[in-house]
């Protein structure tokens, strides 16, 4: 009686709430996307379609500032995600494929520490830390802070993936006289790839997204996209900000889509 069981499952109104939920989630983004194509200088008046604000982002008076901020953001996100993913992959192997040990719980707590501590507290603690050791603030301080809080985000998908890979493949390799290093690099790593890519993308986006911690530890004149946008928005929402937002939105959506298809393809195989 499939129809009957489906009936038991469905509640009137839940579908409507789901639609409402999606509207709330998408309405602000879509509105900003639409207004980014507004020809008008004012954000309240609609004067027809135009790409002038996109041109403004690349050639306008503030283009230099935003280009540098975008470069900083992507540089930091790339390095931080790469380092964090490497650290997380090694750590996941150590946690899952290296037997039981006494400090396992403590290690797990340490890895998830940045997730448990509220962002603003991490920001304060990192600022105090760099101040106490008199570490000059600049891109380097942002990068170090980002590496630390990206580790758990990279660790989660990587360890989930590793939990799902039986060790029989590595055992087979070891039985055929592969060294452990070979088993690790030639067998485990390729199997781990989807998890590692998800972890990297997650860390990348989290780094690209961060405002609070960056704002606390950034040095003189060093801006990332979020701090530059925040600074601009404080003086009022301007059309060029909407154009930048729409482009950044595009980058995020592309990255999630990639990660979605990777995980989907992986499930099929």
């Amino acid at each position, binding site marked *: 009686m499939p129809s009957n069981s489906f009936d038991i499952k469905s509640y009137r109104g839940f579908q409507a709430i*789901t639609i409402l939920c999606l509207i709330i989630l998408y309405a602000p983004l879509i*509105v900003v996307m639409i207004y980014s194509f507004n020809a008008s200088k004012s954000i309240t008046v609609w004067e027809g379609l135009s790409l002038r604000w996109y041109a403004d982002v690349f050639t306008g008076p503030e283009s230099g500032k935003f280009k540098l901020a975008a470069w900083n953001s992507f540089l930091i996100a790339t390095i931080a995600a790469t380092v964090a993913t490497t650290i997380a992959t090694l750590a996941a192997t150590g946690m899952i494929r290296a037997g039981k040990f006494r400090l396992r719980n403590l290690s797990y707590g*340490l890895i998830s520490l940045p997730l448990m501590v509220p*962002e603003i507290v991490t920001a304060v603690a990192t600022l105090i830390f760099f101040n106490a050791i008199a570490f000059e603030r600049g891109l380097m301080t942002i990068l170090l802070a980002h590496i630390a809080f990206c580790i758990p985000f990279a660790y989660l998908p990587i360890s989930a993936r590793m939990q799902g890979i039986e060790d029989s493949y590595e055992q087979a390799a070891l039985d055929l006289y592969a060294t452990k290093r070979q088993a*690790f690099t030639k067998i485990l790593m390729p199997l781990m790839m989807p998890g590692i890519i998800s972890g990297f993308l997650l860390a990348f986006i989290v780094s690209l997204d961060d405002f609070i911690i960056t704002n606390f530890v950034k040095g003189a004149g060093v801006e990332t996209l979020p701090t530059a946008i925040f600074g601009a928005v404080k003086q009022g929402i301007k059309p060029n900000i*909407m154009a930048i937002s729409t482009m950044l939105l595009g980058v995020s959506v592309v990255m*999630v889509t990639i990660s979605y298809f990777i995980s989907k393809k992986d499930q099929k195989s």
Partner: protein
Amino acid sequence: MASGAASGGSANTDTYEEARSWLLLPAWVTLVALSLIPVLLMLVYSFLTKEFRGGVIWEFSLAAYDQFFFDRGLFGDDPATLEWTYITIFWRSIWQAGAATLLSLLIGFPTAYFIATRPETSRPIWVFLVTIPYWVNLLIRTVSMKFLLRDQGPLNDLLIGLGLIDSPLHMVNTNFAVQLGLFYSYLPFMVLPIYAAVERYNFALSEAAADLYASKWTTLRRVLLPSVKPGVIAGCILVFVPSLGAFLAPDLLGGAKNFMIGSLIEEQFKGNAGNWPFGAAASMILLTMVLIILMIFARQQARAEREV
């Protein structure tokens, strides 16, 4: 070989046991240096003497905590009474975060349930749809929300256009805007764990209840809800905790007037106040609150697992 045979087919093995220290060392070094030590240092700073206009003097002092909990009047020489200022700010943050959590639950639960009861092939697409906005920069989402809610913004235009209201609703710089912003920031955190729990739920239980003439809503309340409770609690925690220390939503949508914890702390380091030990103390109190909530949660989850 022996170990391989014993654990054949399992994921948790000791294959790389001898390399364990080297595998974990980078994570240990990075996180101890950049996460643990900073938090401990912050604890130390909260017990130091404040330097006039920012910074610290390395002398032990309880002044930061004293300022947080005790009111000694305008001139600092009245007998100490309980200081309500910061307790009020914390209470407001709890209230705002609570309201945002409730809002997320009211909308997130039906959504998660609806998605989990779709045919298996279309579920990932629904999940994908709900999670995309989360990947968009939080700052951009908050700014978008502010743009939408403005007095002369699109939402008011729409409502007036539809004839639902005559004059614009004032939404920016209100508590409601902050709650909506928090809700918007963390909604997927509510939907995903509930979705996972409902997906695992065995609907034969609901059918059994229906066979016993339980109404649909009774079934939902008495049979389904208890089974998916861990997912619901996880969702609530995942929304509540980050909302508690949020900075962007209160700052951009709340007009920096009704302080929440995040703005209070920020002002000690970046704004007018310049009182580092106090900022560190407020951060410690926030951290303690969060850790207590997480501990209670972990204990409940453990108990729930034992029951299942």
